[in-house]
């Protein structure tokens, strides 16, 4: 996977000297790396469980099958095999740039995979015996692989880490187009594989969560390795050069998802739900990521959009007896949500920072309480508004399957197409705003409001606009949400949903489009996959939020500005934040 087709343009990257206790191991780095890779391969072939779990074999109760079928490994053991071989190859090929970093990424991937599977077998198999030796059977696969990963990590650190590799001269336009097409097609397959990996979590399929997590761990290791090797930067650079082309191809690729393995009703529904939250998260990203205004009641705008749409849908519980066509309903929902956005945003004229966050939280709670009490007969109260009819176009309800020629689209695919278009539109709005005069004004306000005002930005209207536009986008998504789920209840718009959306934006990386989509996907796919851990879901979520702020506050896909602002290693931290931003600025200059 780290094979490089073109000669890399290696910038003279200074090898970071091995640090601290590992410095003494530097002469053995190659040996350690190779040993780690070898142990990983051995671990992949060893049996992993001493007995068959109650719910059926997990994994297939493997013995040493190397002699009968050397490539007969599948699932997570295949991932380990590939990682191990890659590590061994890398250990002996000094020409590969950023070798230490790639090996470190592979090492973390191996550790993640073996820990997930080992822990799962341990807990489900009733104790430590399940992954060591019990009843005359031995199964040290998990432990050997874990040691392999650890040795790999030690070896990677001992040899010193280089900077990220940078490579790739611009190629001809058509070559790059072709390459991008291939890469995006691979991306589509990858997304389909992630969605379907482990299958649908249920009683009949109790292993879905573990399989999915293990796959995610392997994928994380792979992506980190590619990033270290400079592939990710190269691809991003290429797609930046062909922005319009990339946008069109990505849209087309997204629309092709129903034709892949993910093309069943269940996954289409999941994907459409993710789309709703991705669109909402992008809207929130305008308020939080660009303008730097923390909004803790944002999900209320999704709710307002949904309630408006429900009332014009012709459902029996609707307040108005008017049925409007869906596009018009969407516009009305967006406008109404936008008006509320301006109202919620108006205190920004006088309130800043933490206090503003509390004001937005208060507005969010007022919405929840009012809709719980069925205010004005508009929200259905605790009965919700059920029976909202599906969107229909040309006599085709969007929730049913459709056959065009020989291609049969699964039920829910039409909703999926619709939300893809909505998300694309929202992305276009965000992308253009970010680089506009208004977007620059938002970023200036985020960095320093007083300085922005001094530069001639009218901060009041600009901040209210941020709330308004963010709310409009959420309202749009809300109208879709109402029709797709068929029921609008205040339960869907509680404080926890706002926190989850905020977490999606932060996890992905504030101020970036891929970040918001990635964050929303992770936070809304995981609960679908981890049904068996449903009890612990929120607990893990809360702890994860704390850990992210502690170890990676800039998120998975950081914005360039943000990275400079939040990463402590890029500049010496101010000695003390207690005296406010002015002191921090002085300290940094």
């Amino acid at each position, binding site marked *: 996977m780290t094979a490089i087709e073109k000669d890399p343009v290696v910038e003279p990257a200074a090898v970071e000297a091995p640090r601290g206790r590992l410095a003494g191991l530097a002469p053995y780095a190659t040996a350690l790396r190779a040993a780690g890779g070898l142990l990983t391969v051995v671990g992949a072939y060893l049996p992993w469980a001493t007995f068959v779990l109650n719910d059926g074999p997990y994994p297939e109760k493997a013995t040493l099958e190397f002699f009968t079928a050397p490539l007969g490994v599948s699932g997570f053991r295949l991932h380990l095999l590939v990682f191990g071989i890659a590590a061994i190859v890398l250990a002996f090929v000094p020409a590969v740039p950023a070798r230490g970093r790639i090996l470190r990424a592979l090492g973390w991937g191996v550790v993640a995979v073996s820990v997930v599977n080992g822990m799962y077998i341990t807990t489900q198999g009733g104790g430590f015996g399940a992954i060591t030796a019990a009843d005359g059977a031995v199964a040290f696969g998990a432990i050997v692989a874990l040691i392999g990963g650890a040795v790999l990590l030690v070896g990677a650190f001992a040899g010193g880490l280089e900077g990220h590799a940078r490579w790739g001269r611009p190629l001809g336009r058509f070559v790059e187009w072709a390459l991008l097409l291939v890469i995006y097609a691979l991306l589509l397959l990858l997304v389909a594989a992630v969605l379907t990996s482990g299958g649908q979590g249920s009683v009949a399929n109790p292993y879905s969560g573990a399989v999915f997590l293990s796959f995610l761990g392997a994928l994380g290791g792979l992506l980190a390795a590619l990033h270290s090797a400079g592939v990710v930067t190269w691809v991003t650079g290429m797609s930046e050069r062909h922005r319009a082309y990339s946008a069109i191809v990505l849209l087309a690729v997204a629309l092709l998802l129903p034709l892949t393995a993910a093309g069943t009703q269940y996954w289409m529904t999941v994907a459409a739900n993710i789309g709703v939250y991705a669109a909402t998260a992008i809207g929130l990203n305008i308020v939080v990521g660009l303008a730097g205004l923390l909004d*803790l009641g944002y999900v209320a705008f999704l709710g307002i959009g949904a309630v408006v749409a429900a009332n014009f849908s012709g459902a029996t519980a609707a307040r108005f007896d008017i049925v409007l066509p869906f596009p018009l309903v969407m516009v009305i929902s967006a406008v109404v949500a936008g008006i509320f956005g301006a109202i919620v945003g108006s205190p920004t004229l006088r*309130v*800043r*920072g*933490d206090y503003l966050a509390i004001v937005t939280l208060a507005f969010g709670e007022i919405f929840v309480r009012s809709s719980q009490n069925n205010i004005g007969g508009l929200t259905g109260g605790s009965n919700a508004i059920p029976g909202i009819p599906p969107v229909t176009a040309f006599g085709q309800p969007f929730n049913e399957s459709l056959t065009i020629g020989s291609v049969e689209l699964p039920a829910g695919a039409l909703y999926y197409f619709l939300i893809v278009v909505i998300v694309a539109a929202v992305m276009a709005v965000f992308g253009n705003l970010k680089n506009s005069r208004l977007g620059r004004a938002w970023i200036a306000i985020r960095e*320093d409001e007083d300085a922005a005002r001094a530069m001639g930005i009218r901060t009041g209207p600009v901040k209210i606009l941020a709330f308004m536009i963010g709310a409009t986008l959420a309202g749009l998504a809300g109208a879709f949400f109402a029709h797709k789920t068929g029921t609008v209840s205040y339960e869907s718009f509680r404080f926890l949903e706002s926190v989850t959306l905020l*977490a999606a934006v932060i996890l992905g990386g504030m101020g970036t489009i891929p970040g918001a989509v990635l964050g929303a996907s992770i936070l809304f796919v995981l609960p679908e996959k981890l049904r068996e851990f449903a009890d*612990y879901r929120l607990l893990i979520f809360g702890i994860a939020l*704390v850990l992210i702020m502690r170890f990676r506050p800039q998120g998975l896909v950081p914005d360039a500005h943000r990275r400079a602002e939040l990463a402590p290693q890029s500049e010496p931290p101010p000695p003390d934040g207690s005296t406010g931003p002015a002191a921090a600025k002085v300290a940094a200059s």
Partner: protein
Amino acid sequence: MLSTLLSQIVNGLVTGALIGLIALGYTMVYGIIQLINFAHGEIFMVGSYGGLAMFTYLMPTAIQNQWYFALPLLLIAGAAVSVAVAVLMERFAYRPLRNAPRLAPLITALGVSVALQEAVRVFYPGATAALPFPKAFVEGTWEIPVPGGTVPLRWTGLLIIVTALVLTFALNTFVNNSRMGRAMRATSQDRDVARLMGIDPDRVIVLTFVLGAALAGVAGVLNGVDLGFTNIDLGFQNGIFAFTAAVLGGIGSIKGAVAGGFAIGLVKALGGQYLPGGTAYDYVWIFVVLIAVLVFRPQGFFGETERVRA
């Protein structure tokens, strides 16, 4: 109806005293490190479960029915559990972020809040629903005669009001007159200069969390004794009310927190009685008050001149 009005005022004062006790923790922590400790409401909730655990698992049955033994033990257990959780929270969640941008600790606090609530729900036996709490005090009400009827005041309600006033007085004395209190005030004014004067800011900050958590733990147990049950979602709700009270009174001010608590309690009781929508909307009125205060008088009743907040 005079008696209805007075009854609602009494109800409001009881609620307000409880909210004031929680608000003290908010106001002290904010005063010293400018952090809205969102998880403080959960500290209150954890305290009530600490008291409950003491009663259920540790207390000899012989003294369970004698409130003059049981109540102090419950209060100590509640305060101890709250303090332990708060110290861990400060050490592992907030201290590493002390120099981070303002957004980071606030989001961390949200995470801690969710995690604490869920930890109790998952790990405390039976906490998935409301649990009965021992009524470890004199039951019944004091019927205060007024013209045209009587005003009922539960004995537990009186206990809450008296406890809140006594503890506030003690806290105020401590902060204003003791050596450690002076260190707290110095740290809240300027942490660096306080350090130069030989004060260890970390110790002072931990002490602040400890004091706030102890009060919240006591409030958690008293609330359980008064209501006769406890539930995991009481923390979030009362936490928001307490934050409102702290802001209303002027954040950083001890007197202000308690005064704000009483004001919020009265708004809740009287708003539920006399404003349109009735009790279903009493929360909404509190939030309306919160927004109005933040927009029009962010320094609150007793607040100092407005600080620069960014």
